[in-house]
C-alpha cells in the first residue's frame, strides 16, 4: 500500500514536468456585440395576401424580423448582420440552416422562422440556432390576433435575449413618460405611453394641467403620478386600461414623488406640510396611511427594495441632498452616499443589488449606480442636465431624461429620453414624437 502511494507521488511529481496540465488564463475578449443573423421569417403566398389585407403590410414576415433586428441592435449586445449577405433563402433556412453558409458571414447565432395565417390568426414559429455548434437553442411558436404582430416581434426578441444572455429580456414592455411642448416658462405637459421601441405612442392626458413623475405598478397596468389638477398638486392613480383615475389619500397639502411597492399594493410618496416633506405609504386595499419618516428636513424620492424590506430615499438632513436607506417601517436610517456632490432620485434595481441615482457635482449631472450599502459607486454618464433614472425590468438598462442648455436668448431648450446600459456602454436617445421627461419602464407585459 505504502509503496503504491509512493509510486503515485512519484508519478505525480516527476513526469508532471513533461505531462502536467497546462493552464492558460483568458482574461480578455472582445466586447463587440454578438454577430447574429436575423433571417426574414418565411411566409407562404396565401398567408402573405391575407395579412396584407388585414394589416396593410406588404410582407409581415419581413416586418416582424425587422422588429427583432432593431430590438437586438438597440440592446447593444448584438450585431444583426446585413441581410444582403445572407446566402440562404428564408424558407429554406427555416427548415434546415446550412451552418457553413452562416458561418461564412461570421454569424454566431441565427434566427429563422415562419409566419402563417391560421383560423384568422397570426401564427409565428421561430428558432434560434447556435451556428458554431450547429444546434438549435430555442424553438417556439406563438398564435395571436394579427394586430398584435409587433408584440410577437418583441416577445421573440425577449426569448432570444434570454437564451443568449441568461437574463430575461425587456422588449415586450412599455414606457410611460411626460410629453412636453411649448416654451420653457409655460411648458405644457401630458402623460404619454409608448412601446419600448417608440411605437404606438399615445397621450393619456390633454395637457390642461401640469403632470409629473408617472410610475408603473410593477405588477399591473396601473400608473401613479403627480397632477396639478385644480392647482392642488396631489398623487393620483390611473388605470391605463380603463382610464379611471383617483386621488391617492386625503392629504391637506402637496403629495408628490409617488412610487409603487414591489407587490403593487402600496404607494409610497412624500407629503409636504409647513416646509417639511415626510415619506408616507398608503395601502391601496384598506387605505391605511402610514408615516414612515419623521425628521424636520426634506425626505423625498422614496423607492422600495424589490423584497419590500427596505426603502431608499433622498434627504437633506445632513445639510445637503444625500441618499439614505432605512427599513420599510422607517427604522435604522443610514446614509449611504458619501461621494463629493449632491445625490438625488435613488431607485432600487429590480435585481436588488444596486441603487441608481442622479448626482450633481461641480455643475454637471451624472447618472450612476452604487451598491445598496453605498459602496462601488460608478458614474455611467455625465451631462449638463439629466436625472430620474428608471430601470428596465431586468435591471440591465436605465432610461432617464436629459435637458439641453439654452443659448443667450434662453432658446434651444429640449428634453429627451435616453437609455444607457449598466456598464456605461450603449448610450442612445429614445425617440419620442415630442420632447419628453420622467420616463418609467413597465415590467414585461407577457408572463
Amino acid at each position, binding site marked *: 500500500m505504502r509503496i503504491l502511494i509512493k509510486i503515485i507521488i512519484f508519478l505525480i511529481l516527476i513526469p*508532471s514536468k513533461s505531462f502536467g496540465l*497546462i493552464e492558460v488564463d483568458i482574461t480578455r475578449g472582445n466586447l*463587440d456585440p454578438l454577430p447574429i443573423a436575423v433571417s426574414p421569417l418565411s411566409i407562404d403566398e396565401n398567408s402573405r395576401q391575407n395579412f396584407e389585407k388585414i394589416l396593410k403590410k406588404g410582407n409581415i414576415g419581413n416586418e416582424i424580423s425587422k422588429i427583432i433586428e432593431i430590438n437586438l441592435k438597440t440592446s447593444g449586445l448584438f450585431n444583426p448582420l446585413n441581410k444582403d449577405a445572407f446566402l440562404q433563402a428564408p424558407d429554406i433556412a427555416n427548415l434546415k440552416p446550412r451552418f457553413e453558409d452562416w458561418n461564412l458571414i461570421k454569424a454566431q447565432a441565427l434566427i429563422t422562422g415562419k409566419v402563417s395565417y391560421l383560423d384568422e390568426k397570426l401564427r409565428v414559429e421561430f428558432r434560434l440556432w447556435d451556428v458554431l455548434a450547429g444546434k438549435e437553442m430555442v424553438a*417556439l411558436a406563438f398564435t395571436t*390576433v394579427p394586430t398584435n404582430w409587433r*408584440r410577437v416581434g418583441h416577445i421573440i426578441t425577449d426569448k432570444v435575449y434570454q437564451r*443568449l444572455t*441568461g*437574463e430575461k429580456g425587456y422588449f415586450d414592455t412599455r414606457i410611460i413618460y411626460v410629453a412636453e411642448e411649448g416654451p420653457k416658462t409655460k411648458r405644457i405637459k401630458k402623460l404619454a405611453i409608448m412601446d419600448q421601441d417608440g411605437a404606438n405612442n399615445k397621450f393619456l392626458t390633454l395637457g390642461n394641467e401640469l403632470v409629473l413623475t408617472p410610475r408603473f405598478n410593477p405588477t399591473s397596468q396601473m400608473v401613479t403620478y403627480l397632477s396639478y389638477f385644480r392647482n392642488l398638486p396631489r398623487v393620483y392613480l390611473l388605470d391605463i386600461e380603463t382610464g379611471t383615475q383617483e386621488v391617492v389619500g386625503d392629504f391637506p397639502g402637496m403629495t408628490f414623488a409617488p412610487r409603487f411597492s414591489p407587490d403593487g399594493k402600496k404607494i409610497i410618496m412624500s407629503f409636504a406640510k409647513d416646509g417639511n416633506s415626510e415619506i408616507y405609504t398608503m395601502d391601496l386595499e384598506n387605505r391605511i396611511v402610514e408615516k414612515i419618516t419623521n425628521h424636520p428636513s426634506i425626505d423625498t424620492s422614496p423607492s422600495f427594495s424589490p423584497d419590500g424590506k427596505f426603502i431608499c430615499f433622498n434627504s437633506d438632513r445632513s445639510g445637503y441632498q444625500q441618499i439614505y436607506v432605512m427599513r420599510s417601517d422607517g427604522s435604522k436610517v443610514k446614509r449611504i452616499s458619501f461621494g463629493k456632490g449632491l445625490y438625488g432620485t435613488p431607485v432600487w434595481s429590480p435585481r436588488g443589488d444596486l441603487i441608481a441615482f442622479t448626482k450633481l457635482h461641480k455643475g454637471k449631472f451624472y447618472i450612476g449606480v452604487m451598491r445598496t450599502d453605498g459602496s462601488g459607486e460608478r458614474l455611467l454618464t455625465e451631462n449638463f442636465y439629466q436625472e430620474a433614472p428608471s430601470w428596465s425590468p431586468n435591471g440591465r438598462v436605465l432610461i432617464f431624461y436629459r435637458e439641453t442648455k439654452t443659448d443667450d436668448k434662453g432658446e434651444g431648450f429640449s428634453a429627451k429620453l435616453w437609455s444607457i*446600459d449598466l456598464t456605461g456602454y450603449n448610450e442612445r436617445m429614445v425617440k419620442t414624437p415630442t420632447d419628453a421627461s420622467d420616463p418609467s419602464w413597465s415590467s414585461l407585459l407577457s408572463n
Partner: protein
Amino acid sequence: MNRSVIISSVLHAVFIFLTAMSLPFLTKKPIDLPPIVSIELIQITDKTNIPFAPKAKKIIEEVKKKEEKLVSEQAPPKKVKKIKPDSVPMPDDLVKNEKEIKEDKQNPEVVDNEVKQVSEFEKDELFDPNNIAALIDKSKEEIAETTKKNDKVTQDQKRNVENTGLSLSEEDALKAQIFGCWSIPLGLPYNENLLVRIKLQLKPDGTVAKSEIIDHARMNKPGQGFYKVLAESALRAVKLCQPLRVPTTGYEKWKELQLNFDAREMLEG
C-alpha cells in the same frame, strides 16, 4: 497683500498640477480599456468533429450513430406550442383580446393535434433549453471514453504549479489568439464569479478533439443561469479559434490544455 498673492498662486499651481495629473483618469472607465481585437475567423474544421446535440435522454445511446445522423437530424420543423401574446392587451383592444384568450384556451385540442402531427423522429430533436446541462454531461461521457485510452495523461491531471509548459511567448501567442475569438456576452452580471474553466484535448495541428467544461455542475445551480451563457461563449471562442496557435513542438506537453476564461476583468473595466 504680497504674501497672500504668493500663497494664492502657489495653491493655484498645486491645484492645476493635481488636476492635470488626474485628468486622464477622469474619462469613463470602460473607455479606458485597451483596444479590443476584432473577431478573426480562422479556417474552421469540418463540423463532423463537433458533437451534435439531440434530446438529452437519447444522447448516450446515440453517441455512436450521431455522426451519420447529423445532417438529417437538423432538418424538419417541429412544433412547440406556446400561447402568450394576448395576456396583456392594449387598452383599446382589451375586449377583443379577451375573447382571443378564451378561444385559445377553449381549443386545446387544436394545439394537441399539431403536436401529434409531428412524427416520432421529429419530436426526437425537439430542443429543450433545460437540457443543456445534460448535453454537456454527454460531452463529459465522451471525454471519459477517450481518456480511458490515455491513462497516463489522466493521472497527471493534478496541476503542478511549477510546471509552466509553454514559454511566455508561446502562451502569449495563444492568449492573443483566443482574446480575439472570445465574444464576451455583454449581458452578464458584473458582480458574479465569471470564471469558466475549459479542458481541451488537442490534435497535433492545434484543432480541438474534445472540449469539456470543468465546473459544469454550476449550470444547474439556481441564480447561475448566466454561467451557461458564459460557458457557451467560451466554447464558441475555442471553436472559432481552431486551429489553436500551439507551439510546433512538444505535443505531449500541450495535448491537454486548460483554458480559464474569466470575464470579470473586462466587464468591471
